[in-house]
């Protein structure tokens, strides 16, 4: 278990001011009203918080929060095992 999903949730509620009750793992970024500019900012904030760089194709408007979490978890695991 990692805290990745909690970090994502926190960025969405604090920076993007998305109400907590709108956020759930199966929702897509589009459903949360993130446009392309928002996605780019979202990716940058996650990169700063988690110290891994999100691949663009893993954070599109059709991506669900669960998928973003999974992608980031994979990257985080790699960055720990292959320093």
């Amino acid at each position, binding site marked *: 278990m990692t805290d990745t999903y909690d970090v994502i949730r926190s960025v969405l509620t604090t920076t993007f*001011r998305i109400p907590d009750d709108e956020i759930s793992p199966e929702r897509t970024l589009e459903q949360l*009203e993130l446009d392309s*500019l*928002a996605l780019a900012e979202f990716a940058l904030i996650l*990169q700063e918080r988690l110290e891994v760089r999100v691949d663009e194709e893993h954070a599109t408007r059709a991506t669900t929060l669960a998928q973003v979490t999974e992608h980031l978890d994979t990257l985080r695991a790699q960055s720990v095992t292959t320093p």
Partner: protein
Amino acid sequence: MTVRTPVAITGLGLVTPGGEGAEATWEAVCAGTGTAAPDPLLTGLPVDFSCRVPLSEEELDRRVGRRSWRMGRSAKLAVLAAREAVRDAGHRPADWDGARVATILGCGMGCVDKWEEQGRRLEERGPDFVSPLAIPLVLPNLGTGEVSIDLGARGIGLAPATACASGATALALARDLLAAGLCDVAVAGGVEAGVSRLSTTGFWRMGALSERRAAPAEASRPFAADRDGFVVGEGAGVLVLERAADAAARGKPPRALLAGCGSTSDAHHPTAPSPDGRGAEAALRTALAEAGLAPHDVDHVNAHGTSTPLNDAAEADLIARVLPHRPSVTAAKGVLGHSLGAAGGIEAALTVLTLQHRRVPPVANLEAPAPGFDLDCVVKQPRRQEVRAAVSHSFGFGGHNVVLALTRP
């Protein structure tokens, strides 16, 4: 010069260092106490104080709502002031014909503090760490853009930049657009959130800022003998303008009328006022002529009054020369500091409130005008006065002179 048909001012919205809302700002300006204070952003700089809107970023974001993440501080201030002005005018954006609503908000600089932050990120961490918001944050027209989105105002949008006269230029343009039939409602004024480490240092290097670090609240003292520069500020002042007949048709009594506008250029120097004051005088005379007013009809002057040695001397000379009957004079920058591109909008709104409330706020930190200034400055406490006609002066780097003549309906 022909007399122009006045337009109605039906709504006001203010977010300033005096507070959130037109009422809070009016009370602060009438109280006559300077709002300048040490600014944590400016720590360690030769001038380390400013006049700030007393709302944190988080408080602003909460009020603005879900789109706040992409906005710079100036756009947030603009959205809040515009909402207040439109509500005050009794308009409902859900109901109006947005294609006929213009958004004209003057802005001198854009969010330069964020631009500097992104510049540091580029140099220290590389291109991948520059925010995709860098450009929208620094564009000076994004206050106008975000307000038009927020209000569904789909008519002409402009962000005139005439430095410290931008807000007044916006109001003059809005009047012309209404007169030309290019819009039916204009949401117009000025906005600025240009306080940054670099902008403050730049103004200081020009010799434009007060260095009264020991007592910041006393630093801005328009027309005082010992004035030593302006205090940088921020804010938004938005007015709703419409043709008087349209306001009457929907049963909305105007707060005041914008009766005349004069805009000229010194064609002399980028940052110094012209020594002969001809450009400023022509702007004042044009505004009066358009309003059908003689100089002696002017009861009150809401001065530009920046508290810089040069501006105040030139302006005092202008007022004494063209309006020798000694109308009352106030200068809100003593309380609010100099909000640059927003100042013309904020001060036009304050002039409207003077006309409405028959009350002239005092110039903060002033005992009496400097010797040699033949002015009737209101000092220490507000003065009760029947003001039927008033002028609001705005002058900007670039040699821009804008004078608005406002009258009671």
